[in-house]
Structures are given as C-alpha cells and as structure tokens.
C-alpha cells in the first residue's frame, strides 16, 4: 500500500520527530520502497504459527522484592540537560 506525505507526517508526529515538508516527501518515497520490499512476507504461510518474541527458551528470572541498588541521585541526574537540587527541570507541562 502506498504511503502518502500526510501519512508520513502522522507517523513523524507519533514518533515525536519533526521533519521539513521536503524531507517528508523524500521519506514517503523511501518508506514506500522499504515497505514494498517487506510485502514479500505475505508469501509465507504463517497460519498456526505462534509469534516469536524471544529466541531463548527460558523462564523470566525472579528475585526477592528488595532494594538492590539506590542512593544514586547525583548519578541519575549527572547527564540531565537541566537540574536543580537533584530534580530534573522540564518545560512547563500544564498551563
């Protein structure tokens, strides 16, 4: 199925990416190429096949529900663009 510029704009917005109109047009072409190529998966008979989400057969490991790490406020905010007193500063969310 063909992807038009409006669809690419929608996907960009869902992806939290902003692209110029010019880029959106060229991306539409590229995405169409890639998705057209991917269409060949429809040739495979996958009736009765379970989706494969992991390539290792293992049960999820469990551990005691206790704190194993912590007291690292300085580490946690050490790469933040803006902080104050161990908090992240973010743009105003609520008007």
């Amino acid at each position, binding site marked *: 199925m063909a992807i038009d510029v409006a669809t690419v704009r929608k996907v960009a917005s869902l992806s939290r990416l*902003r692209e110029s109109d010019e880029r959106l047009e060229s991306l539409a072409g*590229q*995405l169409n190429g*890639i*998705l057209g190529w991917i269409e060949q998966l429809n040739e495979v008979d*996958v009736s009765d096949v379970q989706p494969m*989400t992991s*390539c290792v057969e293992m049960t999820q490991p469990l551990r005691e529900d206790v704190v194993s790490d912590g007291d690292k406020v300085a580490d946690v905010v050490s790469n933040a*663009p803006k902080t104050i007193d161990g908090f992240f500063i973010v743009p105003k969310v609520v008007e």
Partner: protein
Amino acid sequence: MSELTRLTLKGALDGLKAKQYSSTELTEAFIGAIEKANPALNAYVLTTFDKAREMAGESDRRLKAGEGRALEGAPLGIKDLFCTRGVRTTACSGILDTFVPPYESTVTQNLWDDGAVMLGKLNMDEFAMGSSNETSHWGPVTNPWKSNASNAPLTPGGSSGGSASAVAADLCLAATASDTGGSIRQPAAFTGTVGIKPTYGRASRYGMVAFASSLDQAGPITKTVEDAAIMLQSMCSHDAKDSTSLTQPLPDFSSFVGKSVKGLRIGIPDEYRLDGIPAEIDALWEQGIQWLKDAGAEIVRISLPNTKYALPCYYIVAPAEASSNLARYDGMRFGHRTEAATGLTDTYELSRSEGFGAEVKRRIMIGTYVLSAGFYDAYYVKALKVRRRIAEDFVNAWNSCDVILTPATPSAAFQLGDTEKAADPVQMYLNDVFTVTTNLAGLPGMSVPAGLDSKGLPLGLQVIGKALDEGTTLAVGSVLEKAAGFTHKPAQWW
C-alpha cells in the same frame, strides 16, 4: 615499536607473561600507532591514553608480582556502544554527544576485571544502524585496505566499522563489537579480521546502548580465531542485571581452537546460492567446502527454505524495537535538549530531530509505522511469525548437520559514499543478507578471513553453530583459518 602492535592477542599475552616487554611499552606502541593512523582512518572517536597508561602501570605491577589475570596488560579498543564509567559514550549519535555514563557495561567490566587496558572508544554507525559506518555522528571510518584497482577510500563495513578497522590496522590487540543483523561479521569480512557473535544471551546486554533488544549481542573482533576464543571467554558471563542473560556455564572456548573436525557434518544451505552474487564469492565458498572435506568433515546439502524472508523480517522487528528503545531520548533526563523550543511536545520533537541522524529517524519511523494501530498485525505480528519459521528452519537443519558454512557477505568492501547504495536503503540493507538469519534465530555465527578477491580485498566465510555451541563454531573456524593461511595485511598508506 611497530613489531609490538602486529602481535596477536595470544602472542602479546604470552610475551607479557614471559616479561619480554611490559604492558606500558605495549600500550605506548599502540598509542603511537593510533596517533599516526587515526587522522586517516577515524577508527577511534575518543582516545583514553591517560587511563590506558594508568591501567598498563597497574598491570605491570601485577605481572611483576605474578598476579596476572587472563587479559593482564592487553590494550583493547571498545566500541562506543558499550557504556564506560566516567568515559564519554555516545553510540556515535549526536543525541548523546556529551553523555558520560555513571555506570560500566558488564562486558567491559569483565574485560577490566581480567586486566585489560582501554585505549579508547571506537567509531560505529549511529546506534549501530548501518552497514558502512557512514551514519556515525563522528564521520565515517576508512577501511585500511585499498583495492589494487583504485585509490578510493573503502568502507570497513558496519556497524562495528571502527572495531574492524582498528584491529586490521593494528591499532589495538582486539576490540569489542556488537551484532544486531551482522554488525560484527560483515565488517570482519571487509577487513580481513575474525568476528564472532555468540549465542543470544551469552554476553550481557547491560550497559550496551540498546538498538533492537531481542537481536543485539556483543562479541569480539580479533586477528585470529584463537584470539576470538580468548576475548569471548572474558566478555561472556551470566548477569543478573540482564534478564535475558543465560545461566548455562561457559566451556573453555580456547580448547576448541585447533580441534579436529573429522566426522563433523557441515551443512551447505541451497538457499544461500543467490542470484547476482559475484563468482568470486561462490568460488571462495567452494574452496571452504573443499578445505573442510580435506580435514575429514562430511558435507551435507541442507535447506533453510525461509532464508529469503530473513531480511524483510529483520527490517520490521529491528526498527520496531528501535523505535521503542529510542523513545527514551526525549531531551528530559539525559542527551541533547533543543534550545529552540518552549512547550513540551515542541521540546521532544525538536530535541529528537536535532539529535538523531537520517538513518536513525528513518528506522524510528518504520518502527512506529509497523507498530501503529491498523498495521500491528499486518506487519509486526506477521514478522514475529515469520521469525519463528526462520528459527525452525535451523532446528530442522540440525537433524542432518552439526554446523553450517556460508559466505559472510555478498561482496568485498565497497566505496565510501557509494551513491547507488545511499539512494536506496534496501540496497544497503542487502549487505547483511547472509548474517541476519542467525540473529533472528539467536545462534552463534563467525566470520573468518578466507581469501582475497581479484582487486586484492579480503573476503570472509561464515560458520553458523547450534545454540550454545560456540565451541564447534570456533573449531571449524580454526580449520578454515589454518587452511586459508590468510596472512595478508593492508599496506600502510596512512
């Protein structure tokens, strides 16, 4: 001095133990080589020479005291995908260009615990997305090899292009790398080095910058198969910090190197004979089959019927996981934040658009698209089902063979700035056509340099093993290595 940098990892460790030279001398030799070569090759994006000297000094103290560990005093390069405490780690993305991790990846911690010395961080495609190392925020890496037909710079392959280039040009004894669809084996093949991706879950992914979590796996790029075994032994471990980390004990990988392959059944998949593949690749494959036959192995024709669907399957699964993993780069807690925005959504969108490169954005958008309402079942779930079919192909194949032999890449290294490939993403993606199946199935795969093409460029053969059977993979690789007698080195033009 250059003599020291030409050593293999095994050779260097033996010499250090025998006190033929100190780790400090060895480290200084590499520092000299990097200073000379890096302006031309761009393999390192950050050098940590002060740290290297300090680590080498400590290794020399330990060696003197007879307390040397498995990798004591060995100078290594680290792919910039592995977080290193207090040392800038960017995954070669602009969005992380000043990121300094307050923690260490388990793989690198294992190396330091074994006494290795860090020379610096190696260049790669941005977030490991690419097959030519041209998507790096820090610029492309140049392959130390040149075609004898032209002086044009060639790609070392990707995404571990810096790792492959550094090992091939003797800018470290060995390097860490990572492989999501072929990113260890393809650059190894392009640079005449050895690259192995172990079974998924053998090496911890803790502290590796995530691309596609169900496919990413760490491994080494080295000069020899024996070196690959040594590096793998140190890098792999069970890790409680990674819930997909395997608990099975590690065998002694080095004990498989040089082991006889007599009676071993080598599978040759019909479906890997692709149309349009250069005759030289086919000839090399035939040569590899003959070498293994001569070593007493039995050659078996096998069928992996869903091979042709591996790449399209991968280009749904990997971007889907990437779009989710890369959602954490929102400009709030770490990474680049735009100066130009005021509102929240504005900040997200502009920070990400400024920070990510074109290929990464393209893959995020594909991932978002295939996961979006209305397309989730048609694309994503479908791909997961095809993935199981691909994995089942291997399970069936293991009924008739013990290990599989294929070419590693569909061509030798191509030119940097190949406009045809750059214009058509699918063309670029096809580079991983022989390697991507093992990532989807979680199997170990290795590329071994096996010969030169008519232009004098290295070509590799790939060995694929059963899950957890890196040992047999290494044994077959070492037989190929010995038979090929690949001792070629790139001419030092830098």
